[in-house]
């Protein structure tokens, strides 16, 4: 999936995942896209949600694909992706480890947990390990404040986490 050349949108992701491309295309085609660019722009964020859903991230080729479909400029699409924290243009790991950094978890020591995870994995918040197994991130309040501090690994919730539990959590990811 490496870049074959340096031109825009030439990362080969679309070609490598024809089914995902088809799914995204079908979704965008189902929207009432017309010639009014302002109106089309109103569908941009939901299209990007769908795209990230099927591809896992938003590489340049996918951004360009969405931009062409909605008839808006790639720079605008990139502007939106870089603005919203939910969107990412780099691939994420198989296990997405998110530490809740909401206020309730913070006062109960979530930063220590984040430090400890970061020490174990050798990556900082927002990064992914080189073997693409783990991504480490922060997460705003998941609303399980009674379980603070909370760590989520993909969809699994760990509550009342202590620094000692970090190794256990990572072991669970095998």
């Amino acid at each position, binding site marked *: 999936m490496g870049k074959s050349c340096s031109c825009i949108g030439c990362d080969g992701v679309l070609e490598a995942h024809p089914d995902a491309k088809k799914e995204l295309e079908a979704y965008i085609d189902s929207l009432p896209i017309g010639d009014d660019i302002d109106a089309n722009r*109103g569908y941009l*964020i*939901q299209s990007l949600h769908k795209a990230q859903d099927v591809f896992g991230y938003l590489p340049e080729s996918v951004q360009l694909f969405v931009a062409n479909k909605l008839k808006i400029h790639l720079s605008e699409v990139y502007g939106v992706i870089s603005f919203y924290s939910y969107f990412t243009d780099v691939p994420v790991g198989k296990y997405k480890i998110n530490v809740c950094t909401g206020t*309730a978890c913070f006062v109960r020591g979530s930063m220590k947990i984040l430090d400890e995870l970061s020490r174990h994995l050798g990556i900082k918040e927002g990064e992914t390990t080189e073997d693409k197994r783990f991504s480490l991130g922060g997460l*705003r309040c*998941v*609303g399980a404040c009674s379980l603070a501090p909370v760590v989520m690994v993909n969809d699994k919730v760990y509550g009342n986490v202590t620094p000692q539990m*970090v190794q256990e959590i990572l072991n669970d990811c095998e």
Partner: protein
Amino acid sequence: MTASSAETRTVKTPDELKAWAADVAKKNKEDAPVVIRVSMGTCGIAAGTTPILEALKEQIKLQGKEGTVKITQTGCMGLCHSEPSVEVVDVEKGTSTFYGSLTAEQAPALIQAGTDLAPGVKVVDKIWYFPEEEENTNGAIQARVVLRNSGRIRPELIEDYIGTGGYSGLAKALTEMSSQDVIDTVTESGLRGRGGGGFPTGRKWAFAAAQNNEQKYVICNADEGDPGAFMDRAVLEGDPHAVLEAMAVAGYAVGANQGVIYIRAEYPLAIERLQIAIAQARECGFLGTNIFGSGFNFDIDIKYGAGAFVCGEETALIHSIEGKRGEPIFKPPFPAIEGLWKKPTIVNNVETYANVCAIMRKGAAWFKSIGTEKCPGTKVFALAGKIKNVGLVEVPMGTQLRDIIYKIGDGIKDGKAFKAVQTGGPSGGCITAAHLDSPIDYESLRALGSMMGSGGMIVMDEDDCMVNVAKYFLEFTLDESCGRCTPCRIGNKRLFEMLSDICHGKGTMETLIKLRTLSETIKDTALCGLGQTSPNPVLSTLREFRREYLEHVLNKTCSAGVCSSLIKFEINDKCVGCTMCARNCPANCITGEKKGKHVIDQNACIKCGVCYETCKFHAIDKK
């Protein structure tokens, strides 16, 4: 429970609605005499409600109680401190018991007991019970207006909402009142925006209604961004129709026929339940064309946020719906004049809408009887932090902070001393013990240097360093600043650096002076609400906890033992050599013989404090 199993009817007149509600009430009475409500909000599910639900279902089968015990899956009951929790309702008597901290092993006893008290299962303290009727608030500290249905009805079945009088507010508005009547009622009720600002809702609606424009919009702000608050999610997951009904009422009042719910993508369960609710409301004729035969048309779309706190600001939110970067712009023009797609638009938050249906049904006078003169009604708070009973709390405006923290919350965890309570999230401030008797309303909290905010209420104890707390909120704002205006983009960065310096022992008295001056400058010059309020956590801690700042700056110590550059852990002579600390140390930096005094390698220590917390002999000093 799926949407397809739901009973729906097409409702064209208020009488048909009444008849349906009566049928639902009759059906509920005749159904099983015992109803067990299982709290299935995101938080309940995270705490492990699903296996409990399965165990309860299995026990009903095993004990042959299919006809007598019915299980319903509801939204959040607010009993975070006791999740997983269930409510057992005696249908005939109308009384109920809340059980908490359940395990699957307790399911047989619970089903066996029926409406009798189940032995060996934790019963939730009465103070967390809500009276079944809103009026019946005698002696109770909590009052339920916004959360009236959350945890009580099945959010995926419209008939449950109809059974509680659902959509009768809309019916009344459309068939008995003019648009102006609706606005007058809301204005008279004194309802103020629950998103934090406290702007009178009726006035906002009147502005938009006065615009002569064919196309107007009604927006529901469900982009709950305060990192310590989740009440809007509870309403959306537990009572989605209440928001839809109120938006339709708002649409009628201002002359809009299109509603948009802007919701965080991080709330998948709330989104799912909203989608189901919208589909049902359309099927029944509560959304669509010619609602209740009045000629009024209204429909609702869902738009997703993508993780930007600033999108809670209404102009930023509108940009986001338009598919742009969520940057705020200078007001005026206000959205009520020029909003979404440049058309008149009203933006209200979820909790505000949840109040509207109750006002439409029961009238402005009823609403004004709750709360204070200037701030009628209730407010929902997400009570969390170093408190024994964490949960969603709804109290009348004017309730004292002390009652919430010590009566409902049952005081501070682990016998520690109270230090402060933080309200208003990253825009708010810290309130000290000296002000705990203050009533909760917009003006009082502002006078204390904090604000209502959307309703996060975080309690802190003696182990929290207030400088570090201020730094935490600043880090949040820094992360979320959209970068459009200089005071917020650069000013907050500088504030954060100064706070970091102080936490690392590099601050001077001059830093403190600069900190205050810059904070005040940002407050005066930033473009939007986010920037203008971002220095509040700094200013309020500087004022209330000056001693702690001075201690960091002059003595280079952190008495709360939080700022890792300023503390160190040492093992004293009380050490008996139990090896507990060495075994638990994640950095493996504690060495020593068994039964001999251990030593911490200060160079390798990461100051996580695990040794301090695990030592049973008070042999570790935090300096």
